[in-house]
């Protein structure tokens, strides 16, 4: 069994030259970040951000927030309104349901058929969405009592009612949480390393967050509270990855005082490569399991995490580490000489 444990198959020493591709990677990253931002702020080229800015009210920050609201397929958490899941033993006539919804509330009613999750329950399910209004809770009760019109035995199995105010708070709260998390990480890395490392880590984090947001904006995937949780976890994972690389970089900076910085970065990345591969693939496999077996509610979370872990790993290698090359870094204790980068990305 010479192949087992598998770790023996991983070459003990790799000599990939990451820095050589840094320029290529940087252009790729900039293009991807640009595309994501464009999609977020124009609703996938469907809307004019300037017009939205002028139409919306409030502080400039709030106005930018409302531009971003147009950039995503916001879930009920952030959009407000009522979403009601109905199951029935007989087929649900979506037209009837839409008509019923229209009687209960004028306008803003959306109806769609959907697959039922509990496999042993009645086989017909439908979702009816109402736009946010003052009496959202009231509409649910009216719908409940009017349900027999749709079919015998039809019943409501899931209700989410979020008023407009709460949804706005959740949205801004989520954005604040993201910003605050990144700020804390910056301070921590700065404190534990040097400012160049902190700046590099933040660049990597912004890169990951923007690309993941871009994924959800470009493909119009539903954006809800769970995705904010996923984003924060991605930040946690990405910074984790970055810290491992930085730790090694710091150690090597002390060990090889004379080695040129680009070579040092390459060396550190190669030394941590096997860990990056093993941890990354374990997490990926587990998340793919979550995607397939975790049910509809966690699908978005799993997609965000899978994408985020790939991007997070990439950004540790190609954003965070080469970023050090841009600013250079102080070497050794006695030498105050700053090593200037030889090949800037």
């Amino acid at each position, binding site marked *: 069994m010479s192949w087992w444990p598998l770790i023996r198959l991983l070459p003990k020493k790799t000599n990939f030259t990451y820095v050589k591709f840094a320029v290529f990677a940087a252009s790729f990253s900039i293009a991807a970040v640009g595309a994501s931002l464009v999609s977020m702020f124009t609703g996938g080229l469907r809307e004019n951000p300037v017009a939205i800015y002028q139409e919306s009210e409030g502080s400039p920050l709030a106005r930018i927030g409302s531009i971003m609201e147009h950039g995503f397929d916001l879930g009920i958490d952030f959009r407000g309104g009522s979403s009601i*899941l109905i199951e029935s033993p007989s087929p649900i006539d979506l037209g009837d349901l839409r008509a019923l919804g229209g009687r209960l509330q004028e306008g803003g009613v959306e109806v769609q058929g959907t697959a039922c999750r509990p496999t042993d329950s009645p086989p017909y399910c439908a979702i009816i969405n109402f736009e946010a209004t003052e009496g959202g809770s009231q509409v649910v009760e009216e719908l409940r009592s009017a349900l027999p019109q749709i079919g015998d035995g039809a019943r409501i199995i899931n209700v989410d009612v979020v008023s407009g105010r709460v949804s706005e708070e959740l949205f801004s709260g989520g954005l604040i949480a993201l910003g605050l998390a990144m700020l804390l*990480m910056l301070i921590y890395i700065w404190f534990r390393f040097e400012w160049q490392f902190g700046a590099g880590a933040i660049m990597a984090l912004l890169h990951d967050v923007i690309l993941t947001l871009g994924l959800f904006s470009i493909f119009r995937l539903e954006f809800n509270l*769970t995705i904010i949780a996923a984003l924060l976890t991605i930040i*946690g994972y990405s910074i984790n990855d970055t810290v491992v690389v930085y730790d090694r970089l710091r150690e090597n900076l002390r060990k090889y005082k004379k080695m040129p910085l680009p070579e040092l970065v390459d060396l550190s990345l190669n030394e941590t490569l*096997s860990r990056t591969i093993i*941890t990354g693939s374990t997490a990926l*496999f587990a998340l793919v*399991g979550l995607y397939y077996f975790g049910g509809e*509610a966690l699908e978005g979370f799993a997609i965000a995490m899978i994408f985020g872990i790939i991007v997070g790993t990439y950004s540790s290698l190609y954003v965070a580490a080469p970023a050090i090359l841009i600013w250079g870094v102080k070497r050794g204790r006695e030498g105050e000489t700053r090593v200037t980068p030889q090949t800037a990305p």
Partner: protein
Amino acid sequence: MLQVARWRIILVAVVAVLGIVWALPNFISERTRESWPDFMPKQGINLGLDLQGGSQLLLEVDVETLRRQYLDNVADQMASRLREAEIRYTGRGVVGDAARIRLVDATQMEQAREALRDVTRSRVTGATDIYTLSEGEDGLIEARPTPVYLRDLSRQAAQQSIEVIRRRIDPTGTSEVSIQRQGDQRIVVQAPGVSNPEQLKDRIGQTALMTFHMVREVSPEEAASGLTPPGAMVVQPYPGVGDRADVVERRPRFTGERLVRASPSTDAQTGEWVLSFQLDSEGARIFCRITRDFTGDRFAILLDNQVLTAPTINEPICGGSGQISGNFTLESARELAVMLNAGALPAPLNIIDERTVSASLGQDAIDSGAVASLVAVAVTVGFMLLAYGLFGIFACVALVVNGVLIIAAMSLIGAALTLPGIAGLILTIAMAVDANVLIYERMREEAQAGRGPALAIDAGFNRAMITIIDANLTTILAAMILFQFGAGPVRGFAWTLSIGVITSVFTAVLVTQILVAWWFRWSRPKTLPI
């Protein structure tokens, strides 16, 4: 390190045993748990509403109404003070965010200020200057509550509402409903197992303020014209109980605060269901006086400004008790009694967020979460075994201990496990081995650099430690932020994530270290097996 300090082994052993004890209730049937001795923990993991099914309502105190009521009250107070001081006034009322009153003679301002002095003092806290008095030139006096006092007021109202709601929806104190204040003016009600929150909302939605008014008799034509005499108002019948609209005096003679108890009973003569009530001594005194002075007239009992009943007073009633007759059934009389006994809400509550998950959907979420977790564990264990062989087994043992500790910590803290929480667990399982990977990779490097196995193992643990701590502290930071800003289920995710990070560092470092040390002393290998 290959001589692991004894205290470390003891620490790991103690933590592991405690972990098993606290995790145990989750795997034992409730019946067995009941028969356990008292010192054994009986608390399992608390499932969130999205997993066990149920309803959650987020309520908000209607601050606007609360402030209006309060200002009304302030205007009343000012009026009565001025009356006592024999200062004539006019134009008493509430305009915008202030209560105002106008002196007939603006030169009496000095006396008025004296008379109104202690109005600005809170009767509850004794704090001075809870609102500012401003005086206009033409004898206008305005009282404007400070923002701080208004916030206190709404917090107080939320706190009182919690008590009222608890008495309304859980009169016997036996159900598992949780009612908590959130922020200054919000209340979260969580009712596990309730898949139709209609009754819940009905009971919460009413202010249930009971008031006693005198009826102003008007001719049907006058009533139809919509013109009401000054100081009177038209009130509609209470749905299902009252039978006709009436015109009553705007000012109640007394309110439900004077009510001691209400209960359903049957009328001795007709045998119909009625609602009996008992007033306190002050209420009884007022009631006695009214019924004596107004014998032959009608008075009305209103609930939330709707007529329950409006009987004619046949004789003075001085015993302090009475009964309300209407079209009651036992059920409706009992329902109303619960509401009256619970007391009135200080201000209306609006439902601003409602989530209901049926039990079957919750069970489905548990099932898929369990399958996904098992798959994640299997993948991780398989991967570690394949990748690291013997050392992989050590990592897996650490993972199992980790799992037990997470379950134990969740049970101990009583934090709710939510669907996103399960996702957090799965991620923790996968990330838990990261510490092991860091250690093992370091060992490999050290061995490759020419160190013997003992030194390589030692250096692997020591050097990887810094990285592990740096890497995991940042994750904890992210989890803390999530906890601060997240709502409901996302908070559950933050809990599992932070618990998982702490336990995984503990197990990956300490447990693996002990296992590797034992193995090393037992086999004395010449080379590392990885």
